[in-house]
């Protein structure tokens, strides 16, 4: 629902509310509690994360950390885990592309082909997510398991070697990512496709555009805000995810999230963990801003 | 004084932009007053200042002698019928209509609501929701919701704008009937000159945040005060000339495009030498030769360039020697045949139907409606 709201907000620039006279303090009072909460528990932690990433790497949780402005933590962390970073970005990019390919027809079908079943299908997109995502991911583990019917069928069809498997491969991890973040693609796409006037497509047809060129020249450009919002909402969480790699993959498929998780919670190497976390945030923000600039939809921010 | 609504030097600015500019206006108690002007001229802003939804940047609004300029909307004995009706979607028709009474603490609202719904002929619709009604019905609910409070002034912001032509005509008559019945002052905003003229006792023509002219509809139409009014309310042929101060007896003697014409001094609003000579298209008569010009009439000659048959009349364009196209409406009364394009004609008019207006230096003839808004 809120994802649809995000998509809906991307179409046009938000109209400015009217200036209310008097009581200039009222808006500040209204936003104080939530603003304070976000400053204290979102912004301040990021500052602390930055600080932690510069702690003396030889310290430990029990002996305490000293602030030594050890910028060297960054190149060190990057050097040790650059492949995990690249894998995360690669997996997330592939998953996002597949989500777009799968999500577009679904969103289009709901918006323009579903008739009075529109609401039912829309709920259908969200409904699977009412079940805990860990449970769903574990269900995929069952579906993809070596002696499950899917693998058996693929082996019979020789699409998979006799001892080929799905589980514990990059394919399984990427499929898990696609599965988990598909609704984040579909809902914004739906929001912008829904506003697409069918008559525009008819007009394009009337002006000698075939279905394919109508799609490229009219439908797709008009749904760009949804495409941008959807790809971002898919790519960002997919990059940071480590559940799919953990449950459907092996350490060979581990993403940067797995590393951060174990650095913080298992190895207790806080400076390095913080440096990795901060790097991840920087990379994601960089990708987001460049992408948004490129696609010319700044108002999404 | 009694219950008159009075705006004194009211100005409203939005940042650097002035929407309403030093406006002074009196609406007598019980009047059906129309505020007429093109879209964006400041009509809604004026209404909103009366309703209390917008605070004037300067000036004063009084009602029956009481200053209401700074009162909140709910403190004023004024109600509004909004442009898009603004019916509460989550409340039934009955609750929409009862809303004001309930806020004023009236205990038993049912009889009044019933009476009001029957006044607007929606007796059996009380249980419905706004979206289950047609546009015309919603409009009448909006009216009932405001009227039930017996405001001293009812403000109507283009209340018929969203209705189709036939329904609009019907509602115009209906509104007029209701106003006569309840005797409340109506301030009716519209951009439709025909609507303003058929409904109102007094029309104020607004342009660019100012009142250009105020008066009875016939008065304004027959003797417009400015070139804007002459071409906003209906259409006028305005010929550029000089001699606005050249008085001889009861007449003014003016020169336009090398010819001399006279106009009764009482029909002149000229304050300087540069003038427009104005004649409405239906006041122009076409004759085939100068010999046929009725006595006392004035005339000039030209060539018919276009004629369009519109049923009750035929509208001609006549090109003068100096290449201005005059509009002439000839009634299809069955007398006289039609004139083909290319025909040489003489255009004649009674000087008592002409009028003189001030003209800005350098301004030329103006013979077309400024705004084509006849729905």
């Amino acid at each position: 629902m809120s994802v649809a709201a995000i998509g809906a907000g991307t179409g046009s620039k938000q109209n400015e509310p009217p200036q209310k006279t008097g009581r200039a303090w009222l808006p500040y009072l209204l936003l104080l509690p939530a603003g304070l909460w976000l400053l204290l528990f979102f912004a301040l932690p990021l500052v602390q994360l930055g600080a932690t990433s510069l702690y003396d790497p030889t310290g430990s949780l029990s002996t305490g950390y000293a602030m030594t402005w050890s910028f060297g933590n960054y190149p060190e962390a990057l050097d040790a885990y650059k492949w995990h970073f690249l894998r995360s970005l690669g997996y997330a990019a592939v998953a996002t592309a597949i989500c777009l390919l799968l999500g577009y027809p679904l969103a289009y079908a709901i918006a323009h082909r579903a008739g009075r079943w529109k609401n039912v299908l829309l709920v259908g997109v969200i409904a699977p997510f009412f079940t805990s995502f860990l449970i769903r991911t574990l269900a995929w583990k069952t579906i993809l398991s070596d002696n499950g019917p899917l693998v058996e069928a693929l082996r019979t069809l020789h699409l998979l070697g006799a001892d080929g498997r799905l589980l514990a491969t990059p394919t399984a991890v990427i499929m898990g990512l696609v599965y988990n973040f598909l609704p984040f693609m579909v809902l914004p796409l739906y929001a912008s496709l829904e506003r697409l006037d069918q008559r525009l497509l008819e007009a394009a047809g009337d002006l000698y555009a075939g279905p394919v060129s109508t799609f490229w020249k009219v439908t797709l450009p008009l749904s760009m805000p949804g495409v941008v919002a959807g790809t971002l909402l898919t790519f960002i969480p997919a990059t940071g995810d480590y559940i799919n790699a953990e449950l459907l993959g092996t350490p060979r498929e581990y993403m940067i999230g797995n590393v951060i998780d174990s650095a913080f919670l298992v190895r207790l190497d806080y400076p390095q963990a913080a440096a990795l976390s901060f790097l991840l945030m920087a990379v994601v923000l960089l990708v987001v801003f460049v992408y948004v600039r490129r696609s010319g939809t700044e108002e999404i921010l | 004084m009694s219950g008159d609504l009075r705006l004194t030097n009211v100005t409203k600015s939005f940042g650097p932009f002035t929407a309403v500019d030093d406006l002074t206006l009196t609406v007598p108690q019980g009047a059906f007053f129309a505020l007429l002007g093109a879209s964006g001229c400041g009509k809604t802003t004026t209404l909103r200042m009366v309703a209390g939804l917008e605070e004037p940047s300067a000036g004063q609004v009084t009602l029956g002698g009481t200053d209401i300029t700074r009162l909140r909307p709910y403190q004023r004995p004024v109600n509004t019928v909004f442009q898009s009706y603004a019916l509460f979607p989550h409340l039934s028709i009955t609750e929409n209509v009862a809303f004001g009474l309930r806020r004023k603490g009236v205990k038993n609202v049912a009889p009044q609501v019933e009476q009001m719904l029957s006044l607007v002929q929606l007796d059996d619709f009380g249980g419905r929701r706004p979206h289950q009604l047609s546009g015309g019905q919603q409009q009448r609910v909006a009216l009932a919701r405001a009227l039930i409070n017996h405001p001293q002034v009812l403000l109507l912001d283009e209340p018929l704008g969203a209705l189709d032509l036939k329904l609009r005509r019907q509602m115009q008559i209906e509104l007029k009937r209701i106003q006569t019945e309840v005797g409340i002052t109506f301030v009716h905003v519209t951009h439709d000159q025909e609507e303003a003229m058929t409904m109102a006792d007094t029309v104020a023509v607004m342009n660019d945040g100012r009142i250009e002219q105020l008066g009875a509809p016939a008065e304004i139409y027959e003797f417009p005060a400015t070139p804007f009014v002459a071409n906003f309310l209906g259409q006028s042929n305005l010929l550029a000339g000089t001699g606005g101060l050249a008085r001889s007896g009861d007449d003014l003697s003016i020169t336009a495009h090398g010819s001399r014409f006279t106009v009764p001094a009482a029909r002149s609003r000229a304050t300087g030498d540069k003038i427009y000579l104005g004649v409405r298209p239906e006041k122009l008569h076409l004759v085939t030769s100068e010999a046929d010009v009725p006595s006392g009439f004035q005339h000039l000659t030209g060539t018919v360039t276009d004629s369009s048959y519109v049923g009750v009349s035929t509208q001609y364009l006549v090109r003068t020697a100096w290449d201005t196209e005059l509009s002439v409406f000839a009634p299809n009364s069955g007398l006289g045949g039609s004139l083909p394009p290319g025909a040489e004609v003489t255009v004649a008019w009674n000087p008592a139907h002409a009028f003189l207006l001030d003209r800005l230096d350098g301004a030329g003839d103006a013979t077309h409606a400024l705004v084509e808004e006849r729905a």
Partner: protein
Amino acid sequence: MRRHWVLVTGLLVLLYLFLPIFVVAALSFNEPSSRLSYDFHRFTLDNWANPCGPGDMCDAVGRSIEIALLATLIATVLGTLMAFALARHRFRGRDATNLLIFMPMATPEVVMGSSLLALFVAGGVSLGFWTVVVAHVMFCVSFVVVTVKARLAGLDPRLEEAAMDLYAGEWQTFYRITLPLVAPGIVAAALLSFSLSFDDFIITNFNSGTTVTFPMYVWGAAQRGIPPQVNVIGTAMFLIAVLIVVAGEIINRRRAA
């Protein structure tokens, strides 16, 4: 046929989304052959008859519900207030506020979870129930603001003006017109917050200390072998949520009729 291929593709994608749900529902009736086996072995109703078999699982579910209710309540109130500020007022710092709302939605969960952990550790805060609530409110607030703000933006300001014109003061206008009209947005935001909080694993994992929520329980069990009752809970969650949606839709239809 060309008209239909989009619809057919769409329905196939939808089927893909539902596939794990069918599996979860089926496994909820499974009597597994061994603790670590995820394959369907034998049909049984035992899991449904005895959902709290593994004792600590139901504790975890209860704790998750508690946390989700608290986080939803706080996030909905705070987020709604902020949505009003953003949608209804012009003030200095609007852009900064919008950025503050947007950032948590654009930041990977691991980063939020780990940074909060860094803060709690640096501040000597002991991890547990309340640190989880604090974290959940933090990531729910943005979604509430966005949802309620969208609803407010769609609200015609003329309706509130009409109410004031009809003798309703500021407060009356608020609770008779504004609040009822924005309510569906607030309810949607609350439901969303609840499901986000109930289902959160990553951020919780960093900040829960020894407190075990339901996702934490499932995660831990995944290493040891999942009791089939987990699938009962998963199926029940799905059914309850679908029921809520259907009930909401029926109420909507009733109102419209």
